[in-house]
């Protein structure tokens, strides 16, 4: 952990707390940016706040990372950047286990469209309200999620009709 975590939270996290006091989140450090862990029901409110608040104005969605945390279920990580203020943040939203659903943020960030499609097919997240939830990089009729930890690195070449089970379950 860096020295900042000992002294206190970085400025940006304090600013988010000040501007969006009603949204609970947990803060942790990464090697580059602060990470805010937020419950899926608060995700849309937090992202809307981060985007619309003039002091925060996170206008660029850089990236969405889909994670399979094995027994802890699936997660999505959002990297945001603000051109006006030059600050950056990472959000982490765990998806509830049986449904694996997260709200889609395409309404706020059009750039999220392809990122969410990729995240959905790669680990099996379901983004509710996504305008076009088809496979992007994989075959259209393929229902496997290769970036699940349970998905083997090598598998029989004929994949049509094979489906991956719920997270954490051996296929």
């Amino acid at each position, binding site marked *: 952990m860096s020295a900042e975590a000992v002294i206190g939270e970085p400025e940006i996290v304090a600013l988010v707390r000040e501007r969006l006091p009603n949204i609970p989140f947990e803060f942790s450090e990464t090697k580059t940016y602060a990470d805010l862990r937020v419950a899926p029901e608060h995700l849309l409110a937090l992202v809307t706040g981060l985007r619309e608040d003039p002091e925060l104005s996170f206008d660029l969605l850089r990236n969405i990372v889909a994670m399979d945390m094995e027994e802890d279920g699936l997660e999505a990580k959002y990297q945001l950047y603000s*051109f006006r203020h030059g600050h*950056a943040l990472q959000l982490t939203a765990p998806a509830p286990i049986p449904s694996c659903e997260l709200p889609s943020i395409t309404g706020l960030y059009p750039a999220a469209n392809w990122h969410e499609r990729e995240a959905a097919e790669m680990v099996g997240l379901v983004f509710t309200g996504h305008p076009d939830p088809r496979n992007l990089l994989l075959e259209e009729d393929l229902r496997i999620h290769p970036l699940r930890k349970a998905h083997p690195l090598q598998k029989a070449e004929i994949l049509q009709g094979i489906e991956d089970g719920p997270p954490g379950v051996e296929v």
Partner: protein
Amino acid sequence: MSVWPEERVTTAEGDLDTVDMTVNVGPQHPATHGVFRMVLTVDGELVVDCEPYIGYLHRGLEKLSENADYRQAMGWWDRTDYLAGMCCEGAYTMAVEKLAGIEVPERAEYIRVIMMELSRINSHFMFLGAFGADVGSFGTSFVYAWRERERIYDLFEEVAGDRMFPTYFRIGGVTMDLPDNFESRCRWVLSSVRQGLEDFDGLLTGNEVFVERCKDLTPVTPEQAIAWGFTGPMLRATGVPWDIRKAEPYSVYPELDFEIPVGLQGDVFDRFHVRLAECYQSVRIIEQCLEQMPEGRVLAPKLPKTLRINEGEIYMPTEGTKGEYGVYMMARGGTQPYRAKLRSPSFCNLSALKELVVGSYVADAIIILGSLDIVLGEVDK
């Protein structure tokens, strides 16, 4: 008279009823710059809908990286943006180094910057040549581009032993020091690159037909560009002076003096011109590096034989040739990353293709796609 019986043909004056036609472009098509496919719905010459299909070059980079040693995986990252392999290596190695807390010797940082900037020139030359061909100067611009690219590739071969996929960077530095005659060879290549840029300027920027076709074609406002997730030259063409080398500097870029070229209205011509101007800045950067480069080690001493990283998470943004080339990595012990993710700029820039081409002519759709400067190895991962 209609050829097809199902077509409706009206004879009403001024209100001709036409039938939309579907045109498939790619995946094997020279204008798509790789295995990219788009299905255009055209009304006469006008594009009314566009559906991009990607994934033909999907090689499972992220899955492979999660199942390989930190050092082994680098060879695959080379092959994402294969026109600028060194930039990808740089992003990957920097992410791992920051995660593991490894210091890189200063000389190695300078060598890396030289290599990354040469790669950037290389990639932009590919764009200039191919884009010229898209617009219509078929052979000439391509040959101009290849002349310089061959010289840069020769230089890479002398330094690293390979041309396209050098795997020259190592976690903690670079494999070997530069050859003795590197400085004079590099300066010669740079003078040749300058000449090549002048030639392009004369061939394309000063060409009335070229300018007529590119000016005012799909102008993009900064707000649109940011909403669509544009970065790199695509964003700078709209007038936003944002370059990660300046905004969130890494390596030795803070010690180097260069400018960020920007466009005026984000149209196709601006995208072309920003890339051309960027090459001059890259030449400036390399010249400064050659002068400032200190002597010393090129690989950090006492590196562990097997690299193990206990715990940590990083998103490392770098300025790739097409935009923000970011590497996300999470370590949870062991010799392999728990998760490695590439934020590829071409992927993000390409996702707005539909918004850009709808409403333009079919011939312009090809130019617009060319102006995005995608590289499919990076889009498909």
